[in-house]
């Protein structure tokens, strides 16, 4: 029998399911890249994947380690310059789904990937925003993938790297931002969605085997659960097999490089 899904695999599969064949995705490295390619190799063969290195409509056979691996360019419809990527494609409003993750997230799905501690006297210096500040406002909607933990899901961010729902209803609108922002946060334990009224992240679905208690323990604020809380459908054999094949091909390909 198939080995059961790990929490990370469940997160990736849940993210993949949220994608449609008609989507145009701005893909980040890690879980987003795995999720997007899993979607492409299963239910969404027509999906368009764009990496910020400039590769448009790429179909990598193995997952890239970086945002600009040769594999992405080799299999792309075309590759544009980075200024063009950020001007015509991202700011141009042509991306339907952007993926983000981060070191920290708050209840309104704002993200921090910049710094823990004071900016000038950092306790932990993180990589920084990269494409995130503009991905967060220009993509039609944002999916966030993050593993839960109380140091990651925090009550208050020391630094807002990218905008989620700000301080609640009307925040994005007040800033003149017309896109939907984070519409789901896919974790290793559950899926959260912003409450339609308060914009606060609310658990809408628990992954198989995950408990309310575990989810609550992995969150630094008092987490709300939706009334119609459901259970995430378990991974199908096909989903797991395709995802594991992809990771195995990737592992072999990267090991072979020096």
């Amino acid at each position: 029998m198939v080995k059961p899904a790990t929490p990370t695999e469940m997160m990736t599969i849940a993210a993949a399911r949220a994608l449609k064949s008609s989507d145009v995705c701005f893909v980040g490295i890690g879980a987003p890249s795995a999720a997007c390619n899993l979607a492409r190799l299963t239910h969404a063969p027509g999906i368009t994947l764009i990496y910020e290195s400039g590769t448009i409509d790429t179909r990598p056979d193995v997952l890239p380690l970086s945002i600009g691996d040769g594999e992405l360019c080799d299999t792309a419809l075309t590759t544009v310059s980075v200024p063009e990527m950020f001007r015509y494609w991202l700011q141009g409003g042509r991306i339907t789904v952007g993926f983000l993750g981060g070191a920290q997230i708050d209840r309104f799905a704002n993200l921090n990937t910049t710094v823990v501690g004071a900016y000038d006297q950092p306790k932990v210096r993180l990589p920084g925003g990269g494409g995130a500040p503009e991905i967060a406002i220009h993509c039609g909607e944002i999916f966030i993938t993050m593993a839960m933990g109380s140091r990651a899901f925090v009550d208050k961010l020391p630094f807002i790297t990218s905008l989620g729902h700000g301080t609640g209803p009307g925040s994005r609108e007040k800033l003149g931002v017309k896109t939907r922002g984070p519409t789901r946060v896919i974790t290793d334990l559950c899926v959260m969605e912003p409450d339609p009224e308060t914009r606060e992240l609310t658990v809408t679905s628990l992954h198989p085997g995950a408990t309310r208690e575990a989810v609550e323990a992995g969150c630094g604020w008092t987490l709300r659960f939706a009334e119609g809380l459901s259970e995430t459908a378990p991974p199908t054999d096909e989903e797991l097999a395709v995802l594991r094949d992809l990771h195995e091909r990737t592992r072999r390909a990267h090991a072979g490089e020096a």
Partner: protein
Amino acid sequence: MASFLSLRDAIANEVRDGDVVAMEGFTHLIPFAAGHEIIRQGRRDLTLIRMTPDIIYDQLIGMGCARKLVFSWGGNPGVGSLHRMRDAVENHWPHRLDIEEHSHAAMANAYEAGAANLPFAVFRGYKGVTLPEVNPNIRSVTCPFTGEVLAAVPAVRPDVAIIHALKADARGNVLIEGITGVQKEAVLASRRSVVTVEERVEDFGPRSANAVILPHWTVGSIAVVPRGAYPSYAHGYYKRANSFYQAWDAIARDRETFLAWMDENVMKADAGREVA
């Protein structure tokens, strides 16, 4: 006007202490060999500009070449932290490092504005985020037609741009293909430039009518350095050494292992002979 030089002479001619230096290459075509030569020549007080600092800037920072870093994403892609950069920012080792931090969109636009000889770049960005509070170089302009307020950043105008490209022809025209990043913009935005290339050819031969080419009169010093992007890669020449990127994490985590590795693999290497 392009001249062909050894890597040693190219760096010696074009890069001076205190310069504002942009070494670009978006994952692809990162000018590692040129960076190593800067380290060997002991340049100091550089302002280093780069969207994604990557291992090469980790090395330059760790070896004490940089006074300031201008960047938008400082990590080891797909691996984790740049430990030397973090050590400099968090603990001021080997000395204090000033940072000026942007988003990718801001820097891409700033290079584009520099290439276009504009004093600033305009874009829609930085909404609802903290960075403008800590970076005084993030300002705004108002659209004179709609009244919309947009983000503005100064154009990037380095003293010298350093890039690695695929080929130079006999006249010194430079060809880039694949993931072209902001390299063309970086060279056009800079006063001077060093271009390392995989090979020198008599003529580029058949190619796309719209091939990405820097004409010889826009380029400064050219050095032929095969594998000059390693452990980054060169489209059609060699692949990215992803395993080296993974190995770097352990090398750079500790100051002593870092210094030992640099001594063995960079300081003792000749210009042009790069390590594997």
